[in-house]
């Protein structure tokens, strides 16, 4: 675990509602998260669990139809809920930056790498063109791109997927942000390229003493890079804590179920069946009461239909389940 830096991102009771035909979709339901400087927090979950909407809500980038509420949403002590759009624009790209999944769609195909890198820097008034250019070259070199000066004149299509993602990361770092939010930054890449990008993110996070919030569906990535993990299901954080505890001794049946679903070389014998999570995610339209996982949970009891309180364990480990103390073991 990295040392306890100051609390940088503090989110309490975040809700995101999206109006849909036939009601309101409660996509994010009472999510509380925090990230300190020098810490990597991973938000993990399957499609539709609300992890991407959570990250967009933090950045204030939700679609116009979505409604955001929160008891608290602050960056370095500054309240983001009451911040003006102008102030938010000043913070985004400067104090908090985002790395998106697909580098082909978040880079402008008609502008050079150099233009796109320097734009944020100039826009936030960090210095003149000369300084912006120097910073861009330095960062491109830092993210492992050879011949950085020549890259400035290149267009995105001239780069491979892995290099484009390196450019996007360099872009996010131009103003030296306190917080970097990365939403599935390596999902579009090959495993060998993915590893390089993850190593780079981890190094930069340490070097620049940033908070890194990484959103992914891949438990392997989470286990290897996270200091702390938040597991999301149906719009809620169902388990949260230090990666070693959440993966070593998961307390929520959904976390346990997810871990049993993935084949592990050397441990899953050829031809053995994997664990499964039967059933489907409940509809998030309308009112939901009780544990959202109870319809698929092998341990479900009548009491699960009542609202479930969050339980706390040591080292900031918390989970939303009524099951008594003992660790869940893998079903034989």
């Amino acid at each position, binding site marked *: 675990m990295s040392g306890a830096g100051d609390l940088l991102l503090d989110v309490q009771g975040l809700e995101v509602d999206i109006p849909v035909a036939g009601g309101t979709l409660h996509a994010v339901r009472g999510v509380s998260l925090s990230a300190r400087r020098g810490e990597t927090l991973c938000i993990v979950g399957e499609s539709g669990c609300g992890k991407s909407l959570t990250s967009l809500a933090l950045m204030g980038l939700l679609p116009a139809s979505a409604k955001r509420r929160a008891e608290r949403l602050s960056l370095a002590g500054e309240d983001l809920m009451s911040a003006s759009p102008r102030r938010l624009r000043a913070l985004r790209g400067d104090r908090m930056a985002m790395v998106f999944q697909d580098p082909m769609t978040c880079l402008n195909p008609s502008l050079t790498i150099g233009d796109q890198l320097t734009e944020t820097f100039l826009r936030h008034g960090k210095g003149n063109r000369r300084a912006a250019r120097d910073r861009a070259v330095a960062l491109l070199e830092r993210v492992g791109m050879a011949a950085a000066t020549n890259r400035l004149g290149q267009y995105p299509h001239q780069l491979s997927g892995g290099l484009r993602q390196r450019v996007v990361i360099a872009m996010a770092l131009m103003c030296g942000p306190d917080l970097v939010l990365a939403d599935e930054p390596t999902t579009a890449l090959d495993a*060998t390229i993915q590893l390089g990008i993850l190593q780079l993110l981890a190094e930069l996070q340490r070097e620049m003493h940033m908070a890194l919030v990484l959103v992914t569906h891949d438990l392997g990535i989470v286990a290897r890079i996270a200091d702390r993990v938040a597991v999301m299901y149906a719009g809620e954080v169902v388990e949260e804590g230090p990666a070693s505890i959440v993966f070593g001794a998961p307390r929520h049946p959904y976390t346990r179920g997810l871990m049993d679903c993935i084949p592990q*070389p050397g441990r*899953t014998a050829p031809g053995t069946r994997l664990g499964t999570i039967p059933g489907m995610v409940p509809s998030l339209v309308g009112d939901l009461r009780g544990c959202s996982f109870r319809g698929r949970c092998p341990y479900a009891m009548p009491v699960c239909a009542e609202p479930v309180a969050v339980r706390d364990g040591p080292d900031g480990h918390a989970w939303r389940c009524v099951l008594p103390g003992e660790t869940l073991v893998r079903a034989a």
Partner: protein
Amino acid sequence: MSAIPPILELRGVHKRYTVGAGMLARRRTLTAVAGVSLKVDRGEVLGLVGESGCGKSTLARMMLGLEEPSEGEVLLDGRPIGSLGRLERGRLVQPVFQDPYSSLNPRRNVAAIIGLPLAVHGVGTAAERRDAVEEMLGLVGLAPRHAEAFPSQLSGGQRQRVAIARALVLRPTLVVCDEPTSALDVSVQSQILNLLLDLREKLGLSYLFISHNLAVVQMLAGRVAAMYLGRVVEEGVAERVLGHPRHPYTAALLASVLTPDPSLGLPEMRLGTAFPNPLSVPPGCAFHPRCPAVFDRCPREAPALLPCPEGGRAACHLVEQPEGGPPPAGLVQAA
């Protein structure tokens, strides 16, 4: 000649494309597949692994008869694929593709999608086809009520079950699965992988299973072939190839598998970042610009795919001359 020919055999298969559109652009040849020889025996699962652009999907398309090789032969059940009629071919080999969102016709219901191969080939009467569809639904774990549903009403996992049912309705011997679970969530992926294992046992199927996820391949495949820039660089029994890889590329692929083990941290990446470009394949061993064990011979001379002492084949100079150069055992990295 043995009595039973392998269900699929590739002999020195090449596929070249001419690229370079536009008035001024020079025409260039892209070699997607460069001399691949492989076979899949009946009842066997061959895993095919490699990064994007290594030619694995082009190879799959040639096995399905969707592309013709520029050179070399594709044999299904011992006969050249071009000599087979469409129905004959369809009864031997069928595909399951990656994305069940784009591989199913959104305007047809599930029964029509699964029954289409039968209807196209005029197999059986309408009533027999209905029975066959119903049987398929049960086989892949869908309820009879799903027959009337449209793809948009199904989840990703259900759609992939429909795609599998459609592939099996002609009762093929070989199913070519091209990244069948990459678009799915992990909890759905495990259901589909279990289903593929069950179906193989029940129907005695052979799979050619293409995936970039070595953990998935390890669970399913009896034999594994690794491809790099259009060539097979290592091939053999899965236990040997994935347990003791002899080619540095296979070792690197294995090292990049991230298991959910927080005590391990991120493994060290020993591969160079030079992106493999099929339009300019490096001379000698195509892998040498990224290889952690490269030596003077590699850029000069392309290694042949030769038998390894431990079994299987590998295309690496280190394997050819075990007494010279750095010890190949040093390449094996614990996952």
